């Protein structure tokens, strides 16, 4: 069975529970309320704590309350009997004979004195209890002040933490913005890089094409030059041979075409 919190000690019904040793309708009703409160949740108090409180209540219902009134009445009667016994013992030892009315009055007086003593004791107890309550109140005040100071210091630290949290949030926000801007810039630069790479590839292709065409041109020029050299050397030989034949002696070659690539053999020869 689970129980929930229920402030029994402040409940006047608790003090009125019967003392006959049986569970009355009222007790059953109270217990029913107690059980009902459990069903409506245990947010207000931990389950184990409400369980302890309910069990203590149930324990007192079973063990204390049924007998408390009986035993108190029994004690009072015992005290009264004792008083009467003392009184009659005193009177039996007395030499004077008193009328029953006087004896009755004296007995009442004795009882009254006993009640007065008890009340005086009660007043003393209440006074000391009052002093204790005052001391407790002072203690509670000191506790309140202590907790107030603790709460203030905690509030201060909470404020400092709050402001530092705000600073951090602001820094985070600005850094996020900066990051977003940098990411956008990085995107643009990336696109430019891709375009540049494409252009480089295109230029390389063009350059390779140019180089190929140039090589062809050079090869063609070289072959033309070779042919030209061959012809000029053949012409020169032919001319030299023709001149020797006319003069009857060999003749030196004196002319070189201007566009002919220079060779070692040719440059060392005199013009």
């Amino acid at each position: 069975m689970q129980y929930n919190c229920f402030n029994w000690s402040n409940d006047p019904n608790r003090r009125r529970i019967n003392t006959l040793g049986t569970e009355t309708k009222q007790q059953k009703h109270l217990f029913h309320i107690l059980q009902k409160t459990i069903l409506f949740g245990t947010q207000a108090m931990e389950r184990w704590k409400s369980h302890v409180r309910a069990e203590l209540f149930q324990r007192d219902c079973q063990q204390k309350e049924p007998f408390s009134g009986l035993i108190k009445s029994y004690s009072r009667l015992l005290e009264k009997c004792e008083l009467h016994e003392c009184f009659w013992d005193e009177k039996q030892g007395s030499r004077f004979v008193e009328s029953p009315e006087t004896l009755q009055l004296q007995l009442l007086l004795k009882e009254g004195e006993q009640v007065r003593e008890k009340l005086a004791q009660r007043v003393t107890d209440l006074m000391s209890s009052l002093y204790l309550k005052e001391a407790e109140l002072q203690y509670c005040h000191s506790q309140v002040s202590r907790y107030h100071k603790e709460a203030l210091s905690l509030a201060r630290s909470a404020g400092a933490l709050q402001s530092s949290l705000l600073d951090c949030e602001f820094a985070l926000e600005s850094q996020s913005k900066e990051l977003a801007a940098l990411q956008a810039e990085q995107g643009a630069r990336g696109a430019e890089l891709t375009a540049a790479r494409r252009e480089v590839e295109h230029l390389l292709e063009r350059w390779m094409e140019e180089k190929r065409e140039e090589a062809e041109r050079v090869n063609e020029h070289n072959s033309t030059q070779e042919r030209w050299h061959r012809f000029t050397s053949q012409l020169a030989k032919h001319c030299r041979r023709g001149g020797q034949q006319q003069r009857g002696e060999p003749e030196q070659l004196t002319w070189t075409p201007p566009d002919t690539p220079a060779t070692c053999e040719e440059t060392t020869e005199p013009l």
Partner: protein
Amino acid sequence: MADDKDVLRDVWFGRIPTCFTLNQDEITEREAEPFYLLLPRVSYLTLVTDKVKKHFHKVIRQEDLEEMWFEYEGTPLKWHYPIGVLFDLHASNTALPWSIIVHFKNFPEQDLLHCPSNSVIEAHFMSSIKEADALKHKGQVVNEMQRKDHKQLWMGLQNDKFDQFWAMNRKLMEYPTEEGGFRYIPFRIYQTMSDRPFIQKLFRPLSPDGHAHTLGDLLKEMFPAAIPQDDEQKYQVIIHGIEPMLETPVQWLSEHLSHPDNFLHICVIPATND
């Protein structure tokens, strides 16, 4: 917090209706009537039975009067255990009122301590408080108290004054907030099934990782058999006549369900079918 104070009140004002009957072997001048009393659970038998003694002294011859002692179903009752512990341990599942036999002779020297006066009870009570504080605060709180403060604790118990007692006892229940509890929990586990009087070891209120230890944790370490297994409850774990839930933190139990001697007295008895 106000609710917790109610728990302290309920613990303090717990009562057991008791019927004292004179042992039949005692020689009396006339028939001895039984004597009924509401015994405070937190007090000691010899501290609250002056009236019982007075009642039976009337019928016993003066020459037969020796030290009074009590017995329940053949077991001599140790006056130095709190009354509630004696009841929970020996008679928790019996009909009320609790029937105790009063003896005035054949004192069982092997089982009981002598209690010639209330000063012996006071000495025992104060030594228990000091032992408990040694466990909770290295004895610092009780040592800082003055003699009158010690007297206030004792007088509070002797005269059954809740406010007087707790005005001083609350100092013994304080601890630094940052520590989260006492150094060690002063507890004693009683069992009827063993010759060992009780189990008492060092036990911290918090685990090394800062979690609150519960009654279940305590029992698991000290008396594993007391934990129900497979929904079978072999033992009842009783404190002040109730069975707290096993998830109850021991620190809270120590603060609220300790006896005035500042020890948490836990009774483990075999479970009954009903």
